C-alpha cells in the first residue's frame, strides 16, 4: 500500500511517501494510524492525535473509520487550509 503524507504530518514523519505491507488486523484508517505510530518516533509524533488528522483513500476524502479493503493509495494529512 502506498502511503502519502502532507504538511506537518509529512514533516514529522520525515518522508512524503512510503510503501508498506499492512497486517491483516489493520482494517480501517484509524487502525492504520495506530499501527503506523509504532514505526518510528517521527510517526508517533505525527500520528499521536488522530482527531487532528484527515485521510483520503485513492484520492477521495474518507472518515477515519473507512475500511482499507482494496485501497492502493492512502493519504494522511491535517485539515486543509487552501484558498
Amino acid at each position, binding site marked *: 500500500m502506498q502511503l502519502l503524507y*502532507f*504538511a506537518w504530518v509529512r514533516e514529522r514523519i520525515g518522508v512524503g511517501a512510503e510503501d508498506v505491507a499492512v497486517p491483516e488486523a489493520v482494517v480501517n484508517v484509524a487502525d492504520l494510524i495506530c499501527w503506523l505510530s509504532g514505526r518510528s518516533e517521527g510517526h508517533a509524533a505525527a500520528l499521536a492525535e488522530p482527531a487532528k488528522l484527515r485521510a483520503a483513500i485513492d*484520492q477521495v476524502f474518507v472518515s477515519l473509520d473507512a475500511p482499507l479493503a482494496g485501497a492502493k493509495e492512502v493519504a494522511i*494529512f*491535517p485539515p486543509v487550509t*487552501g*484558498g
Partner: protein
Amino acid sequence: MISVSVQPAPIDLPSELAAVEIKGAGGIATFIGTVRGDDGVTELTLEHYPGMTEAVLIGLAEEAFARWGLLGVTIVHRVGPMAPGDHVVFIGTASAHRKEALESCAYLIDRLKTDAPFWKQERRGDATEWVEARASDADAAEKWA
C-alpha cells in the same frame, strides 16, 4: 467552458479574466485571494496533493456549472512559496445574469477552502508555522449544502 489550473507560476490575471469572458455572458464575477502581510508574515507556502487537488477543483467547477447554469468557470490556484501581496487563487464565473455569476463565485471559494487538499505554511523570519483550519470556513461551506 471549465478551466482549472494548479500552478507554481504567478497567476496571469489579464489572461485568466479574458479566458472567462464568454461570448453571451451578461455577468462575470471574480474572486482573487492574496497573501496577507499582516501579523509579520514574510512568506506563504502552499502545499497540495497532486492529482487529487486538480480532481476536486474540476468536480467543484462542474457542480457550480450545472447548479447555476454557467457559461464559464475558471479556477487557478498557485502552489509553492509566495510573498505578501501575491495572488494565491483566482476564481472567475460567467453567466447570463449577475446573480448566478456572483453566487457561484462565492460558492466556489467557500467550498474550495474546505474541500480542496491544500495546506498553508506561514513564515515569519526564520520561524515557520502551519496554518490551522478555521471553524468559520467549515460553516461557510456548510451553508451551500
